[in-house]
């Protein structure tokens, strides 16, 4: 009896190893095929990795692609760039624009292009029973809250911005992100720009040293923490704020207007940004009367000549990536509003489309 068991285990082990070694063919039902097949295959597979902020959008766009399987790993912008550099994926996704160091590393493999895809608003959400949405705050006030200088909701700085609103004396519970994130980067970037003290004490970054406050993991964590604690304030992406029916602040922009985070105000924020030649836009306290100051952007990063660079999916994947990006910059933009993300303003959208059209495979253009 034992011998049979040993035999069975050994057999299972061998079988499993055989499976792994050969990577046997997939089942007859719908499944992903590795894209080493012919370039005209009906079902190509594209892989991407990076930003968690953009993940829901890319997954949504992926599900709208007949004949194309797009597998996206939401491992974070940093890991996405590293994966692209190691050529473990066909495209990368990053919220912050690429730094010169990133360009240098990637260009060892081949020239890269970063394509702005869409925008999102970061809300300053609060949990104050009795106080409706639209509490007016300036960047400096928010900075002082996050520096710990303003500790109760009825502090004079907040009160004088909001005449006519009865503010409770609840102490402010500051919530921030505990994990590295592009959302933190966008939030701190704005605060650092408008408040020199914040810039020197905390600075801008995906992961900063917060002087006060509790850390929560992910947008969902911050949203949960804000929901649980009366008097809490936290910065969350718009999608989370809207889903949980949060009350959020109207933030004063550079033009002096208090703007609420809406899709229109986020797109407006992008419209005034100067677009550098490498398309690395960074929206930080934008000008424009309608702009919402806490708007952030996200990019897809691809090699200019994907086949030459040697992406894992080969030519089929290169074509797939272009198809995916063209969809995203085309009909994909109209879906964004349903997910509470903002479309690119027309000028940037045109530049993104042009960048995608310029992508090549071994010298010949891919789109068209």
């Amino acid at each position: 009896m034992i011998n049979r068991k040993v035999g069975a285990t050994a057999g299972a082990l061998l079988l499993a190893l055989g499976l792994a070694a050969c990577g046997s063919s997939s089942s007859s039902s719908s499944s992903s095929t590795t894209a080493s097949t012919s370039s005209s295959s009906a079902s190509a597979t594209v892989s991407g990795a990076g930003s968690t902020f953009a993940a829901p959008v890319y997954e949504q766009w992926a599900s709208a692609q007949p004949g194309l399987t797009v597998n996206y790993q939401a491992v974070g912008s940093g890991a996405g760039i590293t994966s692209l550099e190691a050529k473990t994926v066909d495209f990368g996704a990053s919220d912050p624009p690429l730094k010169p160091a990133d360009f240098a590393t990637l260009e060892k493999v081949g020239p890269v292009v970063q394509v702005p895809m869409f925008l999102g608003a970061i809300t300053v959400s609060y949990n104050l029973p009795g106080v409706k949405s639209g509490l007016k705050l300036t960047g400096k006030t928010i900075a002082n809250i996050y520096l710990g200088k303003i500790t109760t909701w009825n502090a004079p700085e907040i009160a004088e911005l909001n005449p006519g609103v009865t503010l409770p004396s609840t102490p402010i519970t500051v919530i921030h992100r505990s994990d590295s994130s592009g959302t933190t980067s966008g939030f701190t970037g704005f605060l650092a720009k408008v408040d020199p003290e914040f810039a020197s004490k905390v600075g801008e970054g995906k992961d900063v040293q917060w002087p006060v406050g509790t850390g929560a993991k992910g947008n969902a964590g911050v949203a949960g923490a804000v929901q649980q604690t009366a008097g809490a304030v936290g910065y969350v992406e718009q999608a989370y704020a809207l889903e949980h029916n949060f009350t959020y602040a109207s933030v004063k922009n550079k033009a002096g207007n208090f703007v609420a985070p809406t899709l229109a105000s986020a797109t407006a924020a992008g419209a005034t940004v100067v677009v550098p030649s490498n398309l690395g836009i960074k929206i930080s306290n934008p000008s424009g009367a309608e702009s919402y100051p806490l708007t952030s952007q996200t990019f897809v990063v691809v090699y200019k000549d994907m086949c030459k660079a040697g992406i894992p999916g080969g030519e089929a994947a290169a074509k797939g990536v272009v198809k995916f990006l063209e969809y995203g910059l085309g009909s994909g933009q109209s879906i964004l509003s349903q997910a509470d993300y903002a479309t690119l303003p027309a000028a940037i959208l045109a530049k993104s489309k042009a960048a995608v059209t310029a992508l090549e495979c071994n010298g010949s253009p891919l789109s068209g």
Partner: protein
Amino acid sequence: MEAASLPGGERSTLERSPLARLPDRALKYGLTLLAALILALIVYFFIRLVGEARPAFAKFGVFGFTFDKDWNVSAETFGALPLLIGTLITSALALLVGVPVAVATAIYITELCPGRVRAPVTALIELLAAVPSVVYGLWGIFFLAPKLQPAEQWLANRLSFIPFIGGGAVTIPNYFVAGLILAIMILPIVSAISREVMSTVPADHKEAALGLGATRWEMIRMAVLPYCRGGIIGGAMLGLGRALGETIAVAILIGDAPQLGKHLFGQGYSLAAVIANEFGEAQGLHRSALFAAGLVLFVLTLIVNAIARVVVVRAARTGAPNSPAQSAPPAIAGAAGV
């Protein structure tokens, strides 16, 4: 196959032909090779980690990195002390709470509980192992931590004269709740191993104690626990390993603030949690620092296990006369066998 070597005459084991000894040789060398391969794999694992961590150690020095109290990502200074303290506090709490409770359940199941209850209770304890770590983290942060907060606040106020417990701000995610959840997570494994060990206590040990008039508890204390000491410690070490290395649940529950752990009910960080939180966005020196943090944990486990080994050996030596460590396969097997 071989005839038994008995007064009936046939060949004895020692006179077996070389060919007949082949399976024994094959087994011995095969298993030795396997053990060597595993050892080589682990060493290789260690070496790769060191390679990835080297830039961080080069910049801060090994001791500099481990004992510096400043983990600041944006300033690119990385000191692991707050993480180390966090790991130690939560794991110690997990052991302090988890091991006694686990041993209690093991004792209950093997010695005290009525026969019909035994299987259901065992199944329930093992159910704890079936819960994924991310669910523990989420249940902790959404259900347990908020419920515990008033009690923690009360304790912190009442006991404010005790330095570690009182005095600081009580946050919802904190060391205490992280340690508690870890205790729950290590329960099944410590309990299971303790249970297995306790169920092999020879009945005559127990009956001898009872026959001499010992109460149930005295019997457990005299006959069962000393016999099982080594095994229970082995189980506790596995539980400790789990607690030291638990990544996601702790990341959700500890508050993720690289502070120096002055308050039990305040936020902190741990070596494993920082890797989970920051790896996705980390590049260059930051990434290397995260691997270095993993290495620090490696070394910590090394030290803790070394201490545990000493304790086990001492327990075996001074333990009950027939404890398992002393009934290891005797020399005869070595002489007569391969």
